[in-house]
C-alpha cells in the first residue's frame, strides 16, 4: 500500500529529506519505522520518538491503511 512519510527536525536532518512516498507491506507504524531505520541507520539513535497518523497522535501498534500520511517525530523540546 502507498504511504506518505514525513520527517521532522532531527529526523529530517538524519534522513536528509522532509518527506517521501513509500510502497510498503508494513502493517503498523512500528513496522514502517523499522523499514525507515533500515534505509536511514541514523534514526536508530532516537528511541523515544513519537508518531502521528493523518495529523492525530498515534501509538506504535497503529494499523496502517492505504493513503495514510505518517509523521515521525523526534523527542520534543518545547519551551
Amino acid at each position, binding site marked *: 500500500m502507498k504511504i506518505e512519510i514525513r520527517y521532522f527536525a532531527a529526523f529530517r536532518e538524519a534522513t536528509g529529506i522532509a518527506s517521501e512516498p513509500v510502497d510498503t507491506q508494513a502493517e503498523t507504524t512500528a513496522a514502517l519505522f523499522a523499514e525507515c531505520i533500515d534505509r536511514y541507520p541514523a534514526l536508530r539513535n532516537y528511541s523515544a520518538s513519537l508518531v502521528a497518523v493523518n495529523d492525530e497522535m498515534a501509538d506504535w501498534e497503529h494499523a496502517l491503511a492505504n493513503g495514510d500520511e505518517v509523521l515521525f517525530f523526534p*523527542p*520534543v*523540546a518545547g519551551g
Partner: protein
Amino acid sequence: MFRITSQPIDLAAVRSQLLDTGCGAYVQFEGWVRDHNEGQQVLRLEYEVYEPLAIREGQRILDEAIQCFGLRKVTAIHRSGMLELTDVAVIVGAASPHRGEAFDGCRYIIDQLKSRLPIWKKEHYANGMAEWVNCQRCAEAGHQHEQ
C-alpha cells in the same frame, strides 16, 4: 487561547486579555532564551513547530488547566523560528480568584506544553556547532532538562 507565532510576542497584550474583575491573582510564566546549556555557550535558538498538531494539543492543555485548576482566564503563546538571547520563547498567563490555583495551573500548563507539543529546539553554539536539544540526552545525563 493557544497560539504559535513567528513574530515577537506582545507581552502587554497577553496580560490585558486576561484582566478580569473576578480574579485576585495572576501568574505569568516566560521562557527566555538563555546564554548557556549543559556547559555550552548558546548564541541563539531555533524552534521548529508542527503547527496543526501543536495548536490542537496546546489548546487541549489550556482546557485541561481550566477544568482541573479552576483558572478563570488563560492564554499561552509559543514562538517558532529563530530567537536571540533574552527573547521570549513561550509565555503562559493564568488568572484566577485565588493565587494557589493561578500558580498551580500556570505550572501545569508550561510543564505539559514542554512535554506534549510537537516542537523541537535547535541550539546554536559559540563554537559554530548547532544541535537539536534532545530529551534522551537529558535522561542519559541524569537530570531534567528544564527551561
